[in-house]
């Protein structure tokens, strides 16, 4: 399988046993997604084959893979939000007579399937109204209705809360007990070691190792993935903090329950932890002018900023790397060059109108080298890059501007260890150069590893702000949990 200019997978072989959970790890661009796409029939391999239950198969269509009992649960769920849960479960093979859907049979069958995975959802609920975690459950149930015996999960926990993750794990273990072969792709080391039986590690499209997890440690897995030893991926070094940071006072707006205030100094890395939906992204969007604030003010170095649009924010030196890279960050059909220069070209244009092509080429080239973006040329379409490299291009976009405050919303979500460590390095460098770095993260080790101070958000407000020395996983989690559950536990 080849991507334009990049060979995504090269002679990879391993086997997955029935009744076992097989982890698949590798950095971004290591070839995991390509492998899954071949498994699901979305891509046809240029060589080699799959052997399913002793039978050699090459899928040229996703329907073939389904018929062979293979289902892939992707990060982006393949469901129709406008349709009911029941219809989604049986999409393509609805119980029917002469083309007329038998609604009662459909509802009964849907209920049975949902019970199998212990979900109590009304089958007529519109799928779009369910929270993400439940939609994922529906996707799993859907795979089971097709009689899937081999189920692959692609980063299934990337947007789930801890409780939802526990629930998902119970179901995955249950599938294993029923004899399904599970292929589990994740960047989260803890999950792999908790859940997995065996592991296959890929690097740069090549097979590195397949082994029992019991024979490996976290450090050895990371080593094999990156091909070098990573001491401390956060590489935290204390920095001097200066004046002229970001001060947010009484900010109100959509998604916030109470006015939010905090002050982050220049040269500081200021973390925001919280559960999904705690209002962290909303707060970032309000500061950046992507959502309209109803009250409050934002100042940098004592100067009040009049921000009503992202452009105002960028001009004031405040920039945002959005949480959803694909939806809000990149322009997929345009090149790395254009995506890098998307914002700064306005300032660099001759007479504010004519594109300065020399500068554009040089700037894109410089950012690609500086951030070590893996791309054949800067003319490559950004959609052909892996997630980590796309994120680096967005960072490059902002490094092309004069930045005082950078807001990073889940900057390493879905990104492999190697690229993560590089992004932490970039954050440190930015802070060292006097930029105020604000990081939103749902990963406890990350937020603890990189931040000088950490604000914890809970249900639309800032619950507490802790110094690095005072913070630990337990404290942060307790502060982040909704009050009722905190009392109950």
């Amino acid at each position, binding site marked *: 399988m080849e991507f334009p200019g990049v060979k995504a997978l090269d002679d990879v072989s391993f086997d997955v046993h029935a009744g076992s959970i097989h982890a698949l790890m590798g950095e971004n661009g290591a070839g995991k997604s390509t492998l899954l796409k071949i498994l699901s029939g979305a891509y046809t391999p240029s060589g080699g084959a799959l052997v399913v239950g002793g039978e050699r198969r090459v899928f040229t269509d996703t329907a073939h893979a389904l018929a062979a009992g293979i289902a892939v649960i992707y990060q982006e769920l393949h469901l129709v939000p406008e349709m009911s849960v029941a219809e989604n479960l049986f999409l393509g093979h609805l119980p029917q007579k002469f083309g007329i859907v038998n609604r009662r049979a459909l509802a009964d069958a849907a209920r049975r399937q949902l019970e199998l995975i212990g979900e109590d959802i009304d089958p007529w609920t519109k799928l779009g109204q369910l929270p993400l975690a439940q939609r994922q459950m529906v996707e799993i149930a859907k795979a089971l209705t097709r009689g899937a015996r081999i189920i692959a999960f692609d980063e299934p926990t990337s947007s789930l809360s801890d409780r939802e993750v526990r629930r998902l794990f119970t179901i995955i273990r249950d599938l294993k007990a029923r004899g399904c072969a599970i292929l589990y792709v994740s960047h989260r080391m803890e999950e792999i070691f908790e859940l997995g039986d065996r592991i296959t590690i890929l690097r740069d499209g090549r097979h590195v190792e397949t082994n029992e997890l019991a024979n490996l440690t976290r450090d050895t897995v990371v080593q094999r993935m990156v091909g070098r030893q990573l001491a401390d991926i956060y590489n935290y070094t204390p920095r001097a903090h200066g004046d002229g940071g970001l001060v947010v006072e009484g900010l109100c707006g959509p998604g916030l329950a109470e006015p939010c205030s905090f002050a982050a100094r220049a040269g500081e890395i200021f973390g925001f932890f919280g559960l999904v939906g705690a209002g962290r992204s909303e707060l970032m969007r309000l500061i*950046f002018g992507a959502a309209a604030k109803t009250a409050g003010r934002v100042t940098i170095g004592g100067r009040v900023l009049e921000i009503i*649009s992202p*452009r105002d924010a960028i001009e004031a030196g405040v920039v*945002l790397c959005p949480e959803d890279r694909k939806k*809000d960050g990149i*322009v997929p059909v345009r090149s790395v060059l254009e995506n890098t220069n998307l914002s700064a070209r306005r300032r660099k*244009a001759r007479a504010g*109108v004519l594109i300065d092509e020399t500068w554009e080429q040089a700037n894109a080239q410089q950012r690609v080298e500086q951030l070590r973006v893996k791309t054949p040329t800067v003319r490559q379409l950004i959609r052909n890059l892996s997630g980590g490299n796309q994120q680096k291009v967005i960072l490059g976009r902002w490094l092309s501007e004069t930045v005082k405050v950078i807001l990073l919303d889940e900057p390493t979500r879905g990104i492999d260890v190697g690229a993560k460590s590089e992004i932490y390095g970039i954050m440190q460098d930015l802070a060292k150069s006097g930029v105020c770095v604000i990081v939103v993260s749902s990963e406890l080790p990350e937020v603890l590893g990189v931040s000088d101070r950490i604000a914890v958000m809970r249900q639309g407000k800032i619950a507490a702000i802790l110094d690095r020395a005072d913070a630990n996983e337990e404290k942060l989690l307790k502060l982040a949990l909704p009050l009722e559950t905190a009392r109950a536990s």
Partner: protein
Amino acid sequence: MASPSSPAPRQPLADFFDKAGMLVVLAILFLGCSLFVENFFSWANMRGLALAVSMTGMVACTMLFCLAAGDFDLSIGSVVACAGVLAAVVMNKSESITLGVLAALGLGALVGFINGFVVAKLRINALITTLATMQIVRGLGFIISGGTAVGIGLEDFFSLGNSAFLGVPTPVWITAACFSVFGFLLNRTVFGRDTLAVGGNAEAAHLAGIAVDRVKIAIFTAQGVMAAFAGIVLSSRVTSGQPNTSQGFELEVISACVLGGVSLTGGVGSMAFVIAGVLIMGIVQNAMNLLNVPTFYQYVARGLILLAAVLFDRWKRRKS
């Protein structure tokens, strides 16, 4: 003519085919018609062909921007008609060519601005918005003209559509100028690059500080002005304002763009694509006329060609 941006061709042949796929088709088509269609390759026919595609060509320039930004505009056919009628009526009343032209351009700008405002600010789908203005403006054309063609009394005005420079009709010169100006605008200006970014991902463009609404409103306004200008040229050519004219013109223009390889989903397009599309469409039409293909069959043929072009494009994209 601004060329599509490709400074360092790495794999010359593949790159060439990718960038110039439709230009190759155009060249083959032109050669084929020259060899096998009698009277095709003659100065008189070339002149007629160029004149026939000049209006589509002009309006396709701004339609390219519309499509590149992820929208499209169905109201242009009505604007062409209404602008022509308004120009005729105002000229007859005021005895001033300038006033007539300004009134028509003003109408185009207004309709375009309303389209843009409703699409960008009120977030109404471009299909619905321009479908509505298409009917409103068509109706206005009939109201202004009283339902019949309005003959123009100022003979000086006819030279716009009927004169020639160096043997080439003025409308063809105008179209060529439009191709260069808008090609340059798309490739070399911030506005052009922003247009493609907005079409490629409006939210990402917004978060990168691009004033998405302003870009869209500007594009629709330019589209309205351009359609009105085409209407003025047309009324000069036929020496009257015709409220019935140019029905289905919008689909012809969009077809030409898509034929050339402009993406309907936005973010992808270049002026070379548009020129290729416009010329392919024109040559096919011209050849069918020369071969005396009955009009009814011409519709079928044009539809099939459009379908084939889109399928070819998809096939090409899958291969790469």
